[in-house]
C-alpha cells in the first residue's frame, strides 16, 4: 500500500469512528452523555477529529484588515449617531402637528395677515419635521417594503428641507452600506445620486462601494461616482478591483472608469 493510500485509509478510519459516535449519540439521545460506551468512543474520537480537521493554520485566521475595518465602522457609526426617532418622539411630533393645525384653525379670525404668514411658515416647518421623522422611522423598519417607502419619502424630504436633511442623508448612506435588500440599497442610491455635490454623500458612497457584494450595486455605485471622481473614490475603485472574485462585467466597467477618469 502506498503512503498516500495509507493516509487516505487513516482519514477514512477516523471518519468511520466519528460516524459511529454520531450514530451512538443519535441512538442513545440524552443518555449518551452518561453512557460508558459513548464516553469511551468519544475519547477515542477526540484525536480522530483533530486528525481529520488538520488544516493550514494560515487559512483560519482573518487578516488584521477585518478588525481595522470593523472598528472603523463602529467609530463611524458612533460619530454619525444621532438620537433615533423613537415612537414617543414620533407621537410627540404628530401631537405638535395637530396642535399646530388646531391653532392654525382657530386663529385666522382674530389675527392679521403678517401673523398668518408666520403661522404658515411654522406649519410648513412642522410638517417637514414630521416627514423627516417618519422617513427615519421607515428607513429603520424591519420590512423591506417599509424601508422602500422610507426611501421614496426621503426624496421629498431631501428637496423640501435642505438644511434639516443631514440625518436623512446619513440614514440613506447607512442603507446603501448595509441594508440586506438589494432593492432598498439601489433605491437609496438613486435618492442620493442627486446630492453628489455634498462631500458627505460622495465620501459615504465611496466607503459603501467596497462593502457591496452584488455586481448590480457595484456597477450602479461606480457609475454614480464615476463623474469627476477624486482620489478617495479612485481608492475605492481600486480596492474593489483587487477582489479575485469580482464579476468580469464590473471589472471591465471599473477599468473603463479608471482608464478614462480624471483626478
Amino acid at each position, binding site marked *: 500500500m502506498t503512503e498516500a493510500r495509507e*493516509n487516505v485509509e487513516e482519514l477514512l478510519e477516523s471518519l468511520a469512528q466519528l460516524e459511529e459516535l454520531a450514530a451512538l449519540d443519535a441512538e442513545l439521545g440524552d443518555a449518551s452523555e452518561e453512557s460508558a460506551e459513548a464516553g469511551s468512543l468519544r475519547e477515542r474520537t477526540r484525536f480522530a477529529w483533530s486528525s481529520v480537521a488538520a488544516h493550514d493554520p494560515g487559512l483560519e485566521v482573518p487578516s488584521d484588515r477585518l478588525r481595522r475595518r*470593523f*472598528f472603523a465602522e463602529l467609530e463611524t457609526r458612533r460619530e454619525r449617531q444621532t438620537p433615533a426617532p423613537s415612537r414617543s418622539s414620533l407621537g410627540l411630533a404628530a401631537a405638535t402637528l395637530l396642535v399646530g393645525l388646531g391653532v392654525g384653525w382657530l386663529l385666522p379670525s382674530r389675527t392679521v395677515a403678517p401673523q398668518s404668514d408666520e403661522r404658515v411658515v411654522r406649519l410648513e416647518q412642522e410638517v417637514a419635521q414630521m416627514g423627516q421623522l417618519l422617513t427615519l422611522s421607515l428607513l429603520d423598519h424591519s420590512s423591506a417594503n417599509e424601508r422602500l417607502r422610507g426611501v421614496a419619502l426621503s426624496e421629498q424630504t431631501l428637496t423640501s428641507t435642505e438644511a434639516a436633511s443631514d440625518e436623512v442623508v446619513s440614514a440613506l448612506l447607512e442603507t446603501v452600506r448595509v441594508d440586506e435588500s438589494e432593492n432598498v440599497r439601489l433605491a437609496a442610491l438613486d435618492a442620493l445620486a442627486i446630492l453628489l455635490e455634498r462631500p458627505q454623500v460622495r465620501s459615504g458612497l465611496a466607503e459603501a462601494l467596497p462593502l457591496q457584494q452584488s455586481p448590480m450595486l457595484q456597477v450602479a455605485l461606480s457609475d454614480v461616482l464615476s463623474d469627476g471622481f477624486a482620489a478617495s473614490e479612485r481608492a475605492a475603485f481600486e480596492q474593489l478591483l483587487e477582489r479575485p472574485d469580482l464579476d468580469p462585467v464590473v471589472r471591465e466597467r471599473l477599468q473603463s472608469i479608471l482608464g478614462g477618469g480624471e483626478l
Partner: protein
Amino acid sequence: MTRMERSDEQLMLEVRSGDESSLGTLFERHHEGVYRYLLRMTGQPQISEDLVQDAFIRVLRYRQSFRDDSHFRPWLYRVAHNVGTDHFNRSSKRPEYGTDELEAVDEAPGSQEQLESRERVGLMQRALAALPAEKRELLILARYEALPYAEIGELLDCSVGAVKVRVHRATATLRQEVERLAKENEHD
C-alpha cells in the same frame, strides 16, 4: 465588573440598550469563530471577511430581536448563517476550495508529514465543498467549531435529538464523499 468579565449575554443586552461599544468586546471574542465558520461555508477568505463584517453590522441592526432569555452564540451564528445564505442566494456559487487555496496547499514546500497533512486537508475540503449546504454547515458547527448540540438546536430551530441524527447523517455522507474522491484520485 469590567467589560471583559461580563458574559456575552450581558454585553449583548448593553448593545441592545444602545451601548454599541460593547459590540467591540463581542467582536473580539467571536469574530475568529464566525470567520472560520463562514470560510468553511464559502471557501474564500476575502469574501468571508466581508461577510463577518456584514454579520456584526447586522447584529447592530437587529439588536432588538435579541431577547432577555436569548443565548448569544447561537443567536450570532444564526445571523452569520443568514448572511451566508444571502451570499449564496446572490452568487449562486458553491464553495470554491478547489482553486487558489488548494493550489497553495499543494505547492507549498514541507516535510513528508506536512505533505500528508496537506493531502488530508485537500481531500477534506473538497469533500466538504461537495456536501449539501445543510450538511456542511452542521459538520462545521458540530465538529470544527465544537458547538454543543443544544446550541446548534437553538440556532437551527430544531431539537437536540434531531441535531444528533442530522450530524450522524452528515458524517456518513462526508465519509462516503471522501471515499469517492479518493477513488477518483487513484484513477487520475
